[in-house]
């Protein structure tokens, strides 16, 4: 300790030492980034190779680039992507409608049992999806919903509305009451309050909830695997397994397919990384 205080006045060597350690930090970070991204870069470069190019130059990019791999892959992947997008869009509409309404009610109204109902909603955060998978499957079979889009949508809406309601309630509580009062004084009814104040103000949370839903749909695996056997109704997560089987050893097209399937989430990450991270950190069980 005392040694350092004596050393402090000699400034020049310290600065140089800082710079050297700065360079070391950069090198270490670049190395870690490289190791993390290499598998994806490998897939990206291989996705524009033919099998001959892949055999002759395994590591290096090789020209000409064969973008037709992407056309081949797209033709096979597109139906799966379409299912995922349809499921995501309908689920988002359902989740946002359900959780905006319930969040609004929980945040702004007094009624007996409010606490109880809200606790019942939060308690569901503790029920892992995998634990109710088997009874839910039996239920869906009894309802004759297997191999339909609804079997993918309904459980997702129910599951998403849990976190959605909690996020909405927390957010709506933060909106200043004065806004609601002012609108009431101006003669707005409850419906008008909901439409003209709540909806526009809660757009950020709507965004977070939508993003979480898209990530969820793209990552959900066991549920669609077990409930949907019709290839035309498979979402992208499960469709990719089928696609891999079809592509066989045509690695270029196979990897192009992986890239196409990842593109939606990558774009969302690129443009909405703040919400994306908030979603991941907020979307974990127990973190609320």
């Amino acid at each position, binding site marked *: *300790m005392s040694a*350092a*205080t004596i050393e402090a006045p000699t400034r020049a060597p310290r600065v140089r030492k800082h710079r050297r*350690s700065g360079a070391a*930090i*950069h090198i270490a*970070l670049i190395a*870690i*980034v490289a*190791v993390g*991204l290499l*598998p*994806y870069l490998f*897939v990206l470069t291989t996705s524009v190779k033919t099998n001959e190019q892949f055999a002759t130059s*395994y590591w290096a990019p090789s020209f000409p680039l064969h973008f037709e791999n992407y056309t081949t892959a797209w033709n096979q992947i597109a139906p799966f992507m379409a299912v995922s997008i349809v499921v995501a869009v309908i689920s988002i509409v359902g989740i946002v409608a*359900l959780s905006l*309404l319930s969040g609004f009610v*929980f945040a702004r*109204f*007094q*009624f007996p049992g*409010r606490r109880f*109902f809200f606790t019942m909603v*939060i308690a569901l955060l503790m*029920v*892992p999806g*995998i*634990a*109710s*998978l*088997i*009874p839910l499957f039996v*239920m869906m079979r009894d309802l004759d919903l297997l191999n339909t889009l609804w079997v993918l949508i*309904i459980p997702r809406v*129910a599951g998403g*509305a*849990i976190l959605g309601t909690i996020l909405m309630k*927390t957010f709506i509580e933060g909106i200043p*009451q004065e806004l*609601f*009062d002012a609108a009431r004084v101006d003669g707005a009814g*409850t419906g008008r309050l909901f439409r003209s104040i709540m909806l526009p103000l809660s757009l950020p949370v709507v965004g977070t909830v939508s993003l979480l839903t898209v990530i969820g749909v793209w*990552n959900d695996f*066991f549920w669609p695997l*077990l409930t949907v056997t019709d290839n035309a109704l498979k979402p992208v*997560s499960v469709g*990719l*397994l089928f696609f*891999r089987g079809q592509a066989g050893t045509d*690695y270029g097209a196979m990897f192009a397919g*992986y890239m196409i399937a990842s593109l939606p989430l*990558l774009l*969302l990450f690129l443009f909405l990384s703040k919400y*994306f*991270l908030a979603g*991941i950190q907020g979307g*974990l*069980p127990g*973190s*609320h």
Partner: protein
Amino acid sequence: MAVQTPDRVVPDTVAILADTNPPRRRPSRRRISWGAYIGLAPLAIMLGVFCYYPAASGIFHSFWNWNPGGESTFIGFDNYATMMTDQLWWESFKNLGIIFVFGVVSWVIPLAAAELLISLRSERAQFVYRTLLIVPMAFPGVVTALIWSFLYQPNDGVINTFLSSVGLDALAQNWLGDPHLALLSLLFIGFPFIAGLPFLMFYSTLQNIPKEIFEACSLDGVNRMQRLFLIDLPLMGRQVQLLLVLVIIETLQYGFVAYILTNGGPDNATTVPVLRMLNEAFSGGNWGYAAALSTTLFVLTVVFSTIVAVAKRRDSTTNVKGM
């Protein structure tokens, strides 16, 4: 739950408005109260039918020889008794234990990365590196699993090709086909493990430590390693505690990566409870037994989630958004 609802606003304003405009407020207040139940009805129906009912049905049927669509017979605790002697089930928990320990040990890398990142003085550089480090998070889990299954391929796979191109053919392995290596291979998926919650939590904790503390340290001549152990780690205690429980819960649900890469094999070397449960139900048709297994997983999750909730209530400084 530690939910503090600000009850303050509504009654106050209703009272104030009631003074100025009594005839209109009072009846509307009573009407709102009923409207609230109507507003909650859709959510209540949805959650009741598709969340509470299945969970209850699973617990209920775990005491039955469940035969969906046919006759089911009540058998008491037989399913649980079978579970206690189910060798494969306990073996799958042994694998979970390995997965958990490996997961926790692997935090060393995200921690080191967060420390390196926070040492950069340029905010811009920090942002660029942070973004690059977490890009793998944006890939769908299935794609990452499929890519790694290619890396591990015995013939065309990246790892074996790399080993033979540097003259280390002897080290090439059938990574996923060898019972001794399969689990380890699964664990290394996602190496260097930075794109995930631990890194984000470590990094944001370090960011939240006031700069003055670091300055005081460097004035006192505390070097980087000492700072890590004397300041950074103690300040991260809470986060680590929370992460531990989150990882336990996550580990209990571990399964889809193993399904895609090895499907529990070879020789059950990579079997995990979730796969065991699905196998019993969908291949074996033992729905009641599978329900008992899933109830067990459910109870374990609730126990650990409760620990999180309790830990969080004691602590208001955690930076993962609390309620």
